[in-house]
């Protein structure tokens, strides 16, 4: 059931008078943030608070043979210098594995390195001082004796028998391998008219949040309780992990997450330096603040991607795609991250390749290897950009080979919009996707034929423009299948409590979090719409394990779909409770009453009967006037988790129009289009912003972003001058269109939209560059597509 955004008639709970659903309403937190009244972790100042700076390893792999901190300890303002051995007394090490990722192995990781460092940037000592500057001064006076070890840096040779093994106890450098074989790949490839192969190379990059990772940990010895102020996407997960490794009960740990300056998956993991900060607070019995600076952000925030993926596609002359085959290799640093593991991205690549297409013949292998580089893990659109670039790159190569238009080959192979429910060759179950509707809309938005004509005209003038198309699917609204089944205490359900306060305003506590994507806004929109109150009466509280229901938080495009549904169900219950009391007060029946614009009204004629403030006054202050036996419950709580489908898949298609200067290798992005289907759209502006922001991160990967390591494992561009984030000056206009196929798993019908932009942007750009370079007979399958790479491919240098 795919519909346009205009006809959402079926939604009675949502489609009410004055509904905010489907409307662009300003975010309630805008004024606060715009007036500089946000509260980020680095704004927090507590009495007796100390600052920690980590001395970090300059080597990619080395034994620590001695640490002399005597001189540093004597310096002004120094409270303590703590080594890995010392901190091990208060915090236990961890191993980042999950049981459902069979064979995944990793080694124990410590809060601060003990005896050995495994990447350049790993902490070897903590310097705690009265100010960050004093700690940095002292850090220069700690001498650490290292004995350098062989560094494993090239993932292509990590598994060679001659390469040293980073963790000898594990036997080899292979962290994880997954194989998948569906259909009859060899037979259909042999029977194909053409088989095309390519190797796709993806640079390592990272999330670059505006606000770096930051923590204030405050151990209150008198209460035996730790309060952690942290910009995190998953407060309850942090509570669980901190308690587990500090030997505390979860009830002894409170995690408070106020404003967060961007996350993108960077802040959904447990980092060694954050664990060390919690432990230091306990050890020193005082609040300790850690704010990563930009250089250490580059060296320690998880990196992502870094894949080499060989791909093969079979095609018939009529355009039928017969099979996909891939062999993916990725390097993840020395440890699998905790607790979500670093095998998920490769696993996703296997799951997602070929996903939009009909063919059932698919073989895949993915190998994940250890290296002496910074840790790698899930970052926005985990695995999707790899899978999409490989799939869509292969589809374009196949089209080129048989001389078919890239749109036409997709039309002939995308799963039909009426074929659902169905499953992908890797076994993913799709409830309802809309590839063809999305493609048709995209073609119209971009005026494809006119653009092709323009391209031909420009080509005659030696101007080389290209069009690139990329269809994609996206994992959203994950159930326990993602982490819970593997043993991680990461909740896939979320909870919302709503209550009517004594003046008829609504307080809503939700377990999802806000990092700038508008969780607060969409929650208030749902609560206001379902209850029948204006949004300015709804106050949303999030990010506090003491004061919100238990839940997963915000990651994997789940906030609106899961947290939003919990908000809807809780509000429905509150509405029912209010109408029950109203009926008693008004001597009416609940079915004859409704709530509209903050008042209880007659269903029949809409006439206002009682303002909610008056109802609340009676309930809270004159309950004696209510009929006997009536106990009002003006607070309701509901939780939600999808049960039918492990993931609510979404789909979409992107297109890029760009110009390649073949003399200089520079790419100019001229225009970008996205059509996506995230189901019910709660706030079109928030969705469009998510799509555009996601696209920009994908364009960063396509053209700019790369963590450049040398062969000794040194990160050589750990600063914002040399690591190029995409900036507005280079970004094209991004037009966003929607197709709406609500999920029937929830009444809300919303799926996720947070990662769709990132999933397909790089694939669209790469395809467009290759389209532009077609007259030159060269194909580039490596990103970022730097001028150096393009000039080299063109044989100009």
């Amino acid at each position, binding site marked *: 059931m795919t519909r346009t955004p205009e006809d959402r008639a079926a939604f009675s709970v949502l489609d009410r008078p004055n509904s905010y659903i489907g409307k662009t309403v300003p975010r309630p937190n805008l004024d606060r943030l715009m007036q500089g009244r946000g509260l980020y972790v680095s704004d927090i100042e507590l009495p007796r608070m100390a600052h920690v700076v980590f001395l970090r390893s300059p080597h990619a792999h080395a034994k620590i043979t001695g640490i002399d901190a005597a001189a540093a300890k004597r310096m002004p303002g120094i409270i303590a210098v703590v080594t890995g051995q010392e901190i091990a007394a208060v915090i236990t090490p961890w191993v980042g594995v999950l049981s459902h990722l069979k064979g995944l192995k990793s080694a124990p990781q410590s809060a601060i390195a003990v005896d050995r460092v495994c990447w350049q940037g790993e902490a070897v000592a903590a310097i705690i001082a009265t100010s960050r500057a004093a700690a940095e*001064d002292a850090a220069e006076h700690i001498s650490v004796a290292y004995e350098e070890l062989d560094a494993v840096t090239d993932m292509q040779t990590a598994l060679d028998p001659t390469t040293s093994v980073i963790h000898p106890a594990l036997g080899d450098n292979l962290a994880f391998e997954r194989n998948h074989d569906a259909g009859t790949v060899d037979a259909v490839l042999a029977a194909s008219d053409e088989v095309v192969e390519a190797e796709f190379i993806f640079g390592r990059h990272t999330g670059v949040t505006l606000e770096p990772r930051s923590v204030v940990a405050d151990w209150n010895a008198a209460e035996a309780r730790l309060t952690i102020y942290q910009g995190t996407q998953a407060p309850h997960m942090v509570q669980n992990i901190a308690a587990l490794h500090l030997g505390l009960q979860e009830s002894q740990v409170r995690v408070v997450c106020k404003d967060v300056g961007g996350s993108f998956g960077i802040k959904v993991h447990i980092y060694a330096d954050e664990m060390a900060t919690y432990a230091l607070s306990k050890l020193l019995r005082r609040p300790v603040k850690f704010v990563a600076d930009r*250089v250490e952000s580059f060296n320690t925030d998880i990196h992502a991607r870094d894949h080499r993926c060989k791909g093969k596609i079979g095609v018939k002359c009529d355009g039928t795609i017969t099979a996909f085959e891939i062999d993916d290799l990725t390097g993840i640093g020395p440890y699998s991250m905790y607790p979500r593991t670093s095998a998920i991205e490769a696993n996703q690549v296997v799951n997602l390749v070929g996903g939009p297409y009909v063919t059932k013949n698919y073989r895949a292998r993915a190998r994940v290897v250890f290296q002496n580089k910074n840790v790698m893990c899930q970052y926005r659109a985990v695995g999707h950009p790899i899978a999409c670039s490989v799939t869509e790159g292969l589809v374009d190569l196949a089209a080129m080979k048989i001389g078919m238009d890239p749109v036409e080959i997709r039309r002939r192979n995308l799963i039909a919009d009426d074929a659902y429910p169905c499953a992908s060759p890797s076994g993913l179950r799709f409830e309802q996707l809309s590839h063809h509707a999305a493609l048709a809309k995209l073609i119209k938005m971009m005026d494809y034929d006119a653009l092709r004509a323009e391209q031909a005209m420009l080509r005659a003038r030696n101007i080389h423009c290209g069009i690139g198309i990329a269809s994609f699917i996206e994992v959203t609204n994950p159930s326990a299948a993602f982490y819970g089944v593997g043993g991680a205490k990461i909740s896939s359900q979320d909870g919302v409590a709503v209550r009517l306060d004594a003046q008829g305003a609504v307080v809503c506590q939700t377990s999802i979090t806000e990092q700038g994507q508008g969780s607060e806004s969409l929650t208030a929109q749902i609560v206001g719409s379902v209850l029948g109150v204006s949004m300015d009466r709804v106050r949303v509280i999030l990010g506090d394990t003491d004061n919100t229901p238990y839940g997963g938080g915000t990651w994997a495009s789940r906030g609106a779909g899961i947290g939003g549904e919990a908000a809807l169900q809780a509000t429905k219950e509150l509405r029912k409770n209010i109408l029950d009391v109203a009926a008693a007060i008004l001597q009416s029946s609940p079915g004859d009453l409704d709530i509209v614009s903050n008042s209880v009204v007659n269903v029949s004629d809409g006439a206002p009967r009682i303002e909610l403030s008056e109802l609340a006054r009676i309930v809270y202050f004159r309950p004696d006037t209510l009929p006997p036996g009536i106990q009002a419950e003006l607070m309701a709580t509901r939780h939600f988790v999808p049960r039918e489908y492990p993931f609510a898949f979404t789909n979409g298609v992107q297109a890029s129009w760009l110009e390649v200067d073949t003399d200089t290798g520079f790419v100019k992005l001229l225009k970008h289009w996205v059509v996506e289907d995230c189901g019910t759209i709660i706030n079109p502006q928030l969705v469009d912003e998510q799509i555009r922001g996601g696209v920009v991160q994908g364009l960063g990967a396509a053209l*700019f972003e790369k963590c450049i390591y040398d062969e000794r494992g040194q990160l050589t561009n750990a600063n914002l001058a040399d690591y190029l984030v995409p*900036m507005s*000056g280079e970004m094209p206009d991004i037009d966003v269109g929607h197709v709406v196929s609500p999920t029937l798993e929830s009444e809300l019908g919303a799926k996720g939209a947070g990662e769709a932009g990132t999933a397909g942007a790089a694939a669209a750009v790469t395809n467009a560059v290759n389209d532009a370079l077609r007259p030159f007979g060269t194909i580039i399958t490596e990103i970022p597509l730097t001028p150096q790479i393009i000039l080299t491919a063109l044989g*100009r240098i």
Partner: protein
Amino acid sequence: MKASAFAYARATSVVNALELLAVYGDKAKVLSGGQSLMPAMNLRLISPEFIVDIGELAELRGIVVKGDVLTVRALTRHVDVLRSPEIATHAPLLKDATSHVAHPAIRNRGTLGGSLAHADPASELPACMVALGATVIVCGPRGERRIPAQEFFTGIYETALSPQELLVAVELPVARKDSTHFFHEFARRHGDYAIVGLAAQSTIVGGQFTDLRLGFFAVGDRPLLAGAAGKLVNVAVTPEVLAKASAILGEELDPQGDQQATPAMRRHLAKVLLQRCVSRLLCRPDLQSGEPAR
């Protein structure tokens, strides 16, 4: 990322600044707009013991035209250059180039004097000075020195300035009525330091260059006034003539490799710039078609 501790003085006059520099010598650093100095200090790449802040010295501000000479004083901020009618009229090349320097927030603080004293080989402004034939005026304990721009820049972040001296102004010849200019750079993102750039000033009579000064930047350890220009002056420029000049340019260049570009790529891009510059200045699209000169 906190600078190590340092002492600080706000100079009250040029004389006072010179006194302070005389006392502290190479332990001191002059603070102008701070847009290069402060990041370096915060990254602890340098840790000066003493900072002499010249930011309040009114005598170092201002843009003055007198006869054939345009004087731009050291504290002139990039944004002042962009807004100055004198510069737009008399040194339009400098205005064009400055619009490529960093971003508005940085241009609001960064100064011409600071940029030239800093002498980043990838910076636009030193190349403009060379192309325009500027004279750099510095003051020191032994009085004033006037240094031709080409002698001022001596290496990566190195100039003819001694630690006791202050750059006070530059003098530029006022652009002649019949002169034209060209500025272009290849940078990955708007506002980034260039991979390769060219600041050129020329006079053209009857479709031929009578004068051509080509200031390349980011192609070596300092801005390069390309001798290849000589091949293009007072001749009818044909593709062959241009190819010859391009070949000579290739020999003159000794570019460094870095993460953005290998030396070969820099050399290639410099030649593309030469071709585009000549074609644009002479209004000869025919010189740009086809393969770039190698």
